[in-house]
């Protein structure tokens, strides 16, 4: 028999585990934006070494499953003498991976910005750094807002992979509770509802932000 009581009893614990889901996807996305912007600048740079680096970076982080990347980070970092908590390593890895996708999203958006935007900035005498941070990236961010929101939603779902390095977020927690209570259906439904709620909120916030960025 379906047990609503199970859901009510376990919702608080599951919801508490959502903070890891949120932290890993949120902080991962934030890092991804920063690294992604840098990779994107490298990808369109005049310097062939920078372009080559960006190419290899994007190929690697897009071409290798996030799961393997997390395991690599988990086992590789201690070997090279870096001892960071699993959570930090996970956030960092998710950020690096997201950066590969975000750099491509931004690069696409840059192509949609008329050449004259940068030319006007050069004519005024702005330095390259200001042209990027003040003129090009703000416009690229706006243009790519729908794609970035999409990316964040993908990250929320992909964050379940960090269970492999021992972090107990929504998915891992629901597995644990399901096997302890013998109520998998109720528990996984609750987990599904939590993910859905998070992503609906993100989508709504994204639309709101898009509207406010309409200039």
């Amino acid at each position, binding site marked *: 028999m379906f047990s609503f009581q199970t859901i009510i009893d376990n919702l608080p614990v599951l919801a508490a585990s959502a903070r890891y889901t949120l932290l890993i996807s949120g902080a991962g996305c934030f890092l991804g934006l920063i690294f992604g912007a840098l990779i994107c600048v490298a990808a369109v740079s005049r310097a062939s070494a920078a372009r080559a680096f960006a190419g290899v970076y994007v190929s690697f982080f897009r071409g290798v499953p996030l799961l393997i990347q997390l395991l690599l980070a988990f086992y590789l970092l201690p070997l090279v003498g870096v001892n960071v908590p699993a959570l930090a390593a996970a956030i960092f890895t998710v950020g690096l991976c997201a950066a590969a996708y975000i750099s491509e999203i931004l690069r696409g958006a840059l192509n949609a910005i008329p050449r*004259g935007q940068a030319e*006007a900035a*050069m*004519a*005024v005498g702005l330095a390259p750094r200001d042209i990027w941070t003040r003129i090009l990236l*703000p416009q690229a961010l706006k243009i790519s807002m729908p794609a970035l929101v999409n990316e964040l939603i993908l990250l929320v779902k992909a964050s379940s992979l960090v269970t492999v390095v021992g972090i107990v977020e929504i998915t891992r927690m629901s597995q644990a509770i399901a096997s302890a209570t013998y109520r998998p259906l109720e528990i996984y439904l609750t987990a599904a509802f939590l993910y859905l709620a998070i992503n609906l909120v993100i989508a709504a916030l994204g639309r709101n932000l898009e509207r406010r960025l309409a*200039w």
Partner: protein
Amino acid sequence: MTLAPSLTGTVNPASARLENVCKFYGEFQALKDISLVIPPGKVTCLIGPSGSGKSTLLRCINFLEEYDRGGIWIDDRLIGYETVGGRRMGGRALREMRRDIGMVFQQFNLWPHMTALQNVAEGLERVKGIPRARAHEIASEALAKVGLGDKTGNHPSRLSGGQQQRVAIARAVAMQPRIMLFDEPTSALDPELVGEVLGVMKQLAAEGMTMVVVTHEMGFAAHVADRVVFMERGELVAQGSPAEIFQNPGDRRLAAFLQGYLERNSLEL
């Protein structure tokens, strides 16, 4: 539209000198050995058919377009290269030279995510290092001088074409350039908005700004220019005073171009 007495304050106009400038796009030669003197404090208009290289030439003057041979001097300083035929100039030195050169584009190229005020203040803050509050003061004065004192808070999407182009002129003029480049500044405008932009340009000219203007407005060239330069197929074909060019076009290609212009414009009536 009422204009304040002076757009620029005091200008110390620069001259420009082009010697044997060549520009290639792959095999195609867009500029063929152009030599030209832009006198200080005067208006030089560049005219010629589409594709003749007017924009390319104008953009070489602030090195937005890299010329391949010859030299371009602003006053006595070579732009873009350390010596003629030598190494590329460093970014910092180039930016320093560009501070003296204002540019206005056919498509305005205002930054859409900034208000009119921010568009004008950006260069003052980031290039000249003027503190924000003061930069905003200067920017709002500059906008008032082009008749847009009440539009400082508008984003470009909330301005007409003529207003956008006046913001673009204010953005360039606020940097106190010593020479201004205009690439068909009124070509993207509805006919009824052309006058307000030409008005601001005439005032700049009257204040003694050195101006190089690529234009299809033969009326402006005839009445405001001190020098008119006719280009065709990447060559400088003829140059002279407006009277020499328009009333007495000796060159056959120039005469044909002017004839064509007259016919097109009477047909449009």
